């Protein structure tokens, strides 16, 4: 994985000291909260429902064991012993003290991490495929391109005060595991008929209060110009994005209002001008970055067979491991979704264990998934049983990847000052209900996503089943949505009808899964059945 050079480290170290001074001045009363707020937000420090919250960037979700251990140490030393892995492949701490914040940033800097651009109207953490470099279905490893974008976007002077926050995802396969088309810019690296690689640009997607699927504005940008093309996309947005209305400020609104064709025309015009200026990073820099992402020294003789004699282990293997490009290896997913647990939360002890397991079994690397689980990308099949045993002992062995228990849930009203309703208790009740009725496995792939407000951090628009918590006269109410997807079959979910209370929504989820069980045909997932039969059978079951 990428290692900082002197410039990276110098920039991060300088930012720590700058923030230390800003925090000191705030504590001494030399800065008002109005003056300090934009400064702390630039360093990922929010004031949330119960305390300050620090969001730490994890570029394209990749961590080594040293970094994961540092995150555990921060949880223990400065927070309350745990952290929350987010849908942007980051981690958040919920109980931070302002007087500790600069020390935390200094600790992060020691392991080449930071919290820069995890808030504010700038380009946020670049996300990517959590199986990058391990999966056989990619045309190229997307991480060097994500890293190049990270460097380009870090402290980009022109894009530090955009109309609104800006999120970019990079993938390189037909399978979309990064919700690519629900980003401000989604980049899919593709191969044309002559074998040449290029970047397909999808611009203007997003969730939030106005969900939109990004249209493709250019199906093949040569890779030696892809940063310049991104610059052109941002320039047009920066120039014409709505700064007068926060709710219309995202690029999706601009693309929608201009029309994709007109937006594309303006981008192409800008791109042509930028090409003359030669702003693309030199190819040598991409090649330098690429050396950090070479394959680890795989065991060419690794055993391709797995001893499945332990039935519980076999279930975990079937559900939580995915094929790897290297024979004898798999990518193993550590579920942070124990039945009745808090999706995405991990204790310091669990983080340390995951760090050890990454070191022992996955070439010192792990990945945060946007679905709030952790991947060990390169695990020998022969090591799986030992890995699973260690996970089981630590409460991390839940065999529920992509099942109804594998719920994305935002922090909701339990932690977030923007939320209208709690998300976590609903997730807990649903996972408990399905674990108890024994249907988790038989329902197959079922992506359930819960947000506690319209901002959609829990990706409810993109759930096969989505749940949106709303405030109805001071009482939590939950709307049910069906038919969304953030994968390559991307679609936006539709609301079924009137909402439910906290217990009613759990019953409602069970009801719609019963309709699926009754109606499904061979091999159909929940979302496939929904698309075939439509909303009505589900509405009839829900509302009579």
């Amino acid at each position, binding site marked *: 994985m990428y290692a900082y050079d002197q410039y990276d480290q110098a920039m991060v170290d300088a930012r720590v000291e700058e923030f230390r001074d800003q925090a000191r001045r705030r504590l001494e009363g030399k800065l008002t*909260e109005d003056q300090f707020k934009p400064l702390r937000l630039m360093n990922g420090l929010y*004031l949330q*429902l*119960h*305390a300050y919250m620090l969001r730490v960037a994890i570029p394209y979700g990749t961590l080594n064991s040293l970094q994961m251990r540092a995150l555990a140490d921060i949880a223990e030393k400065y927070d309350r012993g745990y952290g929350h892995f987010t849908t942007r492949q980051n981690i958040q701490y919920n*109980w931070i003290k302002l007087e500790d914040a600069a020390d935390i940033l200094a600790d992060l800097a020691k392991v080449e991490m930071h919290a820069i651009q995890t808030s504010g109207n700038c380009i946020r953490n670049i996300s990517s495929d959590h199986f990058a470099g391990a999966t056989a279905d990619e045309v190229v490893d997307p991480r060097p391109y994500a890293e190049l974008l990270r460097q380009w976007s870090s402290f980009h002077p022109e894009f530090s005060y955009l109309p609104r926050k800006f999120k970019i995802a990079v993938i390189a396969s037909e399978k979309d595991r990064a919700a690519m088309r629900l980003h401000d810019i989604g980049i899919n690296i593709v191969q044309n008929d002559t074998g040449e690689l290029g970047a397909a640009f999808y611009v203007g997607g997003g969730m939030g209060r106005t969900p939109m699927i990004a249209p493709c504005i250019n199906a093949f940008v040569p890779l030696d110009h892809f940063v310049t093309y991104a610059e052109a996309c941002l320039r047009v947005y920066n120039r014409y994005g709505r700064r007068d209305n926060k709710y219309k400020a995202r690029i999706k609104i601009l693309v929608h209002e201009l029309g994709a064709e007109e937006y594309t025309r303006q981008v192409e015009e800008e791109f042509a001008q930028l090409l003359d200026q030669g702003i693309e990073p030199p190819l040598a820099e991409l090649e330098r970055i690429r050396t950090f992402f070479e394959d680890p020294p795989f065991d060419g003789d690794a055993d391709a067979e797995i001893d499945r004699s332990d039935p519980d282990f076999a279930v975990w293997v079937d559900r939580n491991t995915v094929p790897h490009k290297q024979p004898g290896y798999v990518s193993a997913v550590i579920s942070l979704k124990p039945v009745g647990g808090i999706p995405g939360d991990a204790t310091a002890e669990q983080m340390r264990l995951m760090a050890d397991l990454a070191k022992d079994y996955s070439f010192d690397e792990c990945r945060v998934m946007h679905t709030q689980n952790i991947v060990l990308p390169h695990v020998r099949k022969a090591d799986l049983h030992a890995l699973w045993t260690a996970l089981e002992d630590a409460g991390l062995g839940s065999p529920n990847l992509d099942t109804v228990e594998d719920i994305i849930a935002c922090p909701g009203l*339990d932690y977030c000052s923007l939320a209208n309703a709690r998300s*976590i208790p609903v997730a807990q009740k649903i996972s408990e209900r399905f674990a108890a009725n024994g249907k988790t496995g038989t329902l197959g792939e079922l992506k359930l996503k819960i947000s506690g407000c319209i901002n959609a951090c829990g990706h409810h628009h993109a759930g096969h089943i989505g749940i949106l918590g709303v405030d109805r006269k001071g009482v939590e109410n939950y709307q049910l949505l069906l038919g969304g997807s953030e994968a390559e079959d991307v679609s936006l979910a539709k609301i079924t009808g009137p909402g439910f209370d906290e217990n009613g929504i759990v019953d409602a989820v069970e009801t719609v899964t019963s309709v699926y069980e009754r109606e499904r045909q061979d091999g159909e997932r929940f979302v496939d059945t929904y698309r075939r039969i439509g909303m009505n059978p589900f509405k009839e079951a829900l509302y009579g």
Partner: protein
Amino acid sequence: MRLLTGNDLKSGAVTWWTGSDWSIHIEDAVDVTGSEDEIARREEAARRVNVPYAIDAELHEGSPRPSHIKERVRALGPTVRPDLTLKPADPEIGNWVI
């Protein structure tokens, strides 16, 4: 009744105006109806509180109870982590909040 709340500048902890100081316990909070703006201005200027604001509340068994669920969660802590609330291991805490 109206309560004045904010966050402690250093720790970020949720605090409540007691009439003479700030407390992390909502049961110490007093009615500030009519004087909330003046107290908030004075206390924020003195850096004894960060971003103060007033909320609606009612008396519930002798203690103030915020009218809105968001402030009730804020007053006690996350409902999903009773070990981290101000009333740990209290089985009734969920009822109080919701």
